[in-house]
């Protein structure tokens, strides 16, 4: 296996351009497990030294989180604590203390796991990504990044940062798994209710975390019944049955969470 360490951003973008099939390495919490599971990794580009991508900055209308900010750094940010309690709630039950000290926000997104906890939360917070390549930079909405199981549209590019607009909102977050911590979600649901209505996303319900548009539409209509929730969910989710959970369990728990989110957010 080949290993390159990028000394600065331009260096990293050049390396990505030359070796599009190499994995980016920073927190290493996903890469290390991947290396153990399969021996198909050609090479690594270590971006851990790009300290310019670590900052969390408060703007007048948004919060910008560098792709290399760790989950611990996000939890310690006063700006995030004040304005994005939903992101804090998901971070607190993310993996374990030792992993939170390593795992980066950019890594959680780019790894594109169906169970990506923070990706699900960022979707309902309307996050946009700044992508960088040798050709320059571009912005895309987070929900345009994924194209399948563990598959992204990153094209000789890397995630540089995540921008979350500031907007008054109420929120709901719930994660179900075999235990409380160090737990890969069997189902998680993130819900935001703001002046535009409901935004809902879930992890472990589809090949990748995505917005549940039919459920959103139903809750926004106000004409909600158990039967209608089930119907809308059936259109939005395609959970897999795996060693971690069954399709039936995931479907039922997603239904329970949607009901719980709706009743708690309507009441408040």
């Amino acid at each position, binding site marked *: 296996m080949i290993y390159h360490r990028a000394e600065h951003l331009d260096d990293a973008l050049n390396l990505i351009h030359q070796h599009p099939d190499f994995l980016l390495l920073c927190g290493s*919490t996903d*890469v290390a497990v991947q290396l153990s599971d399969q021996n198909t990794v050609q090479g690594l580009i270590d971006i851990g030294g790009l300290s310019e991508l670590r900052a969390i900055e408060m703007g007048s209308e948004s919060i910008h989180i560098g792709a290399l900010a760790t989950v611990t750094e996000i939890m310690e940010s006063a700006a995030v604590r004040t304005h994005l309690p939903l992101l804090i709630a998901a971070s607190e039950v993310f993996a374990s203390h030792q992993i939170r000290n390593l795992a980066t926000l950019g890594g959680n997104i780019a790894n594109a796991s169906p169970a990506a906890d923070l990706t699900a939360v960022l979707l309902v917070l309307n996050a946009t990504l700044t992508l960088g390549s040798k050709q320059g930079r571009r912005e895309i909405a987070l929900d345009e990044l994924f194209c399948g199981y563990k598959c992204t549209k990153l094209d000789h590019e890397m995630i540089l940062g995540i921008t979350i607009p500031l907007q008054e909102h109420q929120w709901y977050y719930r994660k179900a798994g075999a235990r409380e911590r160090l737990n890969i979600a069997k189902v998680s649901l993130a819900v935001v209710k703001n002046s535009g209505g409901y935004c809902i996303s879930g992890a472990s319900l589809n090949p990748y975390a995505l917005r549940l548009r039919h459920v959103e539409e139903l809750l926004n209509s106000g004409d909600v019944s158990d039967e209608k929730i089930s119907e809308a969910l059936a259109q939005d989710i395609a959970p897999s049955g795996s060693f971690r959970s069954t399709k039936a369990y995931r479907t039922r728990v997603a239904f329970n969470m949607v009901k719980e989110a709706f009743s708690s957010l309507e009441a408040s």
Partner: protein
Amino acid sequence: MQIRCTINSRPYRFECEPEERLLDVVRRLGMLSVKKGCGEGECGTCSLFFNGKLVNSCLLLAPQMQGAEIVTLEGLQKETETIRENFAKEGAVQCGFCTPGFVMRAYDYIIHEGSKDEKRVKEALDGNICRCTGYQKIVEAIVKSMS
């Protein structure tokens, strides 16, 4: 490839392969408090300080040690004396395999957070697994170390 880094305040220089784990390197260099349990970040018995943060050394690759400051339990003998004594006194030690990782996390928790609330202590141990004690005695030993 050649790596230079600091382990327990001493400079080290060594050769490693890119796919080697930090955990295996520090063991090879003689830091045997760092145990190899699960190899995938679940059990915490390989915990050490990497640039000041407690991490699973099984998840980091050897090349990431370049220029890093690493501290293992061997380098914290004095600082963890009270914690280790309390682990022994409270019966928080049985087979001992998880103990170094728990002592490292206890030390990390006490210097950074330090609430005596048992619920907080239990939550703080979310990255460490013990298969003997049932955890209660470990929690008690940590709380006692803060008294």
